[in-house]
C-alpha cells in the first residue's frame, strides 16, 4: 500500500513539474506577443515606464482611434495597407500553390533528366537571404516599372515561396501511394481525373498547410517590401508600421495597434485551417 501511495505521489509530482515546464516555455513564446497586445491598449507613458509596468492601470482604445483617424493627426491608411497586403498575399499564395502542386507532383511521380540537380538548385535558392536580392531586384524593377506595384510584389513573393511549396507538396504527394491513381485509372478515370478526384483530395491537407506557410511568409515579409514599395498604392502592413516613426519620435502604441491588426487575420486563418494543418503535418494517418 505504502509503495503504491508513494508511486502515486511521484506521478503527481511529475505531472506538476511537466505543467510548470510547459508554462515557462509557453511564456517565453507568448510574452512578446502579449506585450504587444497590451501596449496597443495603454498610454505611451505607461509603455515607456521604467521599470516596466506589468499590471496595466489604464486600458483604452486611443491608439486604435488615432490610427484610424485623419492623416496628420497620427492616422495611417490602415485599410489601404490591409487591402494591399491581402491582394498581394492571396494572389502570390494561390500562384505559388498552383506552381508548387505542378512541380511537387512532377518531382514525386515522374523521372526526368536533371531531376536531382533541379531539386537541389531550388533548395539552394532558399539559402540566399532575401535582402541580398533587394538591390538587384530594385534596379530591375525600376527599369521595367514594377516598383511600387502589386504585380511586382506578387512576382517577388511567388519566387520566394515556390521552392518551398514545391518541396513541401512533393513530400505530401510522395506519401500518396501510386496505386491510388492507378486504381482510379482502372475505375475509368483519365490521368487528369485521377489526379483531381483522388490524389488531390488525399493530399489536400498537406497542400493547405503549404498554402498557409506561403501566405504567412508573404503577409509578414518586411525586408523586400520596404524596398520595393513606395506609397499607398502598394505598401503592405509590415511596411506601414514604419509610418509610426518620425525623425525624433517613435509611436510605440500606434505601432503595436497596427501589429495587432496584422496578427488577427493570420490567427483567424490558422484557426480556420488548423484541422487541415494538423492532418497535413501528421500525414501518415490518411494512408490505408
Amino acid at each position, binding site marked *: 500500500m505504502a509503495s503504491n501511495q508513494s508511486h502515486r505521489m511521484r506521478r503527481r509530482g511529475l505531472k506538476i513539474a511537466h505543467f510548470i515546464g510547459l508554462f515557462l516555455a509557453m511564456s517565453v513564446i507568448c510574452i512578446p506577443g502579449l506585450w504587444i497586445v497590451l501596449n496597443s491598449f495603454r498610454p505611451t507613458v505607461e509603455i515607456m515606464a521604467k521599470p516596466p509596468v506589468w499590471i496595466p492601470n489604464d486600458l483604452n482604445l486611443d491608439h486604435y482611434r488615432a490610427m484610424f483617424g485623419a492623416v496628420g493627426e497620427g492616422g495611417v491608411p490602415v485599410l489601404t495597407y490591409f487591402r494591399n497586403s491581402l491582394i498581394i498575399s492571396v494572389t502570390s499564395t494561390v500562384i505559388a500553390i498552383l506552381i508548387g502542386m505542378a512541380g511537387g507532383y512532377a518531382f514525386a511521380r515522374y523521372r526526368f533528366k536533371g531531376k536531382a540537380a533541379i531539386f537541389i538548385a531550388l533548395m539552394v535558392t532558399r539559402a540566399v537571404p532575401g535582402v541580398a536580392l533587394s538591390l538587384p531586384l530594385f534596379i530591375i524593377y525600376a527599369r521595367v516599372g514594377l516598383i511600387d506595384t502589386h504585380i511586382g510584389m506578387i512576382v517577388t513573393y511567388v519566387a520566394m515561396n515556390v521552392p518551398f511549396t514545391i518541396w513541401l507538396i512533393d513530400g505530401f504527394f510522395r506519401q500518396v501511394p501510386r496505386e491510388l491513381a492507378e486504381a482510379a*485509372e482502372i475505375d475509368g478515370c*483519365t490521368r487528369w481525373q485521377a489526379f483531381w478526384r483522388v490524389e488531390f483530395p488525399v493530399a489536400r491537407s498537406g497542400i493547405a498547410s503549404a498554402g498557409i506557410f506561403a501566405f504567412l511568409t508573404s503577409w509578414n515579409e518586411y525586408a523586400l517590401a520596404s524596398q520595393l514599395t513606395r506609397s499607398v498604392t502598394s505598401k503592405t502592413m509590415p511596411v506601414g508600421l514604419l509610418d509610426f516613426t518620425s525623425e525624433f519620435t517613435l509611436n510605440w502604441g500606434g505601432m503595436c495597434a497596427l501589429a495587432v491588426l496584422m496578427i488577427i487575420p493570420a490567427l483567424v486563418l490558422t484557426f480556420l485551417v488548423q484541422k487541415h494543418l494538423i492532418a497535413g503535418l501528421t500525414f501518415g494517418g490518411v494512408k*490505408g
Partner: protein
Amino acid sequence: MAQVHLRNLIKAYGALQVVHAINLDIADGEFVVLVGPSGCGKSTTLRMIAGLEDISGGEIAIGERVVNDLPPRDRNISMVFQNYALYPHMTVRENLGFSLKIAKRPQADIDVAVNKAADILSLTPLMDRRPAALSGGQRQRVAMGRAIVRHPEVFLFDEPLSNLDAKLRTQMRVEIKKLHQRLGSTIVYVTHDQVEAMTLADRIVIMRDGHIEQVGTPIEVFDNPVNTFVATFIGSPPMNLLEGRVDQGAVVLTDGSRLPIPPRYTAAQGAAVTYGIRADNIMPVGHALPAGDHIATVDMAVTLSEPLGTETLLFAELAGTEVQAKMLNPRPVRGRETMTFQIALDKCHLFDAATGSALRRA
C-alpha cells in the same frame, strides 16, 4: 467473350529486359494464376495487361481487341492491388460506387449495383466507414467489391492476400474461388505462394526471370514438372533432388548406392542426371506408400522429425543430401534412428543434370 492473349510480350526498362517474349492464351472464364519467385516479372506482366505499364514489344489482346495502346479505362478490366489502394477520403460506399460515378451512371443504378456487391461480400454494415477504420480483411473485401461492381470482362489480382494473416488468407482464398464460380469471369491472379496457385487455379503459369517455365493445370504441373525449377517450386515440401549418373538401368548416386531408373524414363548410359522424389513418395516401410508396381528400398538415418498431426515430416540423409520424407500413422522417432524407407518409383522423376529439364518419357 473475354479471352486474353499475350503474344511475344516484352517489357524492358532501358537495357534491362524483365519480361522475355512470353506467349499465353487465357480462355474466357478461366482462372489463371501467374506464380513464381519475387522479382520474376509477374506484376509487370499483370500491369501490362491492365495498361498501367507500357508494352516494350509484342501484343496484348482482350477479347478480339488488341489493347496495346488503350488506356486502362478503355480495357474493361478491374484490378485488386496488393495494398488494396482504397480511396482513403471516401467511405466504403463511395469507394464501391466510384467507377460507376465516373461512368456517369444514374444514382439509382449505382445504389443497386453497390448494394448488391456489398451483399455478396458482407460489407453492408461497413458502408459508411472510411478505409482507415477497417481491418485488413475488411479492406481486402472492399477492394474486391470495388472490382466486381463494374462487371468487367477480366479481373486482375496482384498478390491480394499477401498482407493478411495465415488464417484470413485461407478464408479469403475460398471466397475468391466462390466469387469466380459465381461470376464466371476471366481472372488473372498473381502470387508468389504456390499453395494459393494450386488451390485457386484452373491453370498455373510458372514464371522465372521473365520467362514462362510451364503452363498447365495444378495436377499437370505437380505430376509432370518440366524441369527442376518447377519441381521444387510446386509442392510442399519441395521435391528432393539427388545427383547421380546413369549406369545400366539404374542411377548411381554420389555415395555409390543405386536407384532404379523410374519407369517410362529413358536415359543414355553414363548421363549425368538429377533424380527427383517427392516426400509423399518416400516413406518408412508400412506407411501406406502410394500404390504402384515399382518399389525401391533404402536405409536412411533420420536426423530430425517434424510432427504435423496427421503426418510427420522426416529429415534424413541419402548419398550426402538431405532428404525429406513423410510418415503417416506417426510414431515417436528417436534421434538418428535408422529406418528402412520405400520409394514409389512410378512417381519419381529424372532430369538432365546440366539443363535441369525433365528427360523424355517413353
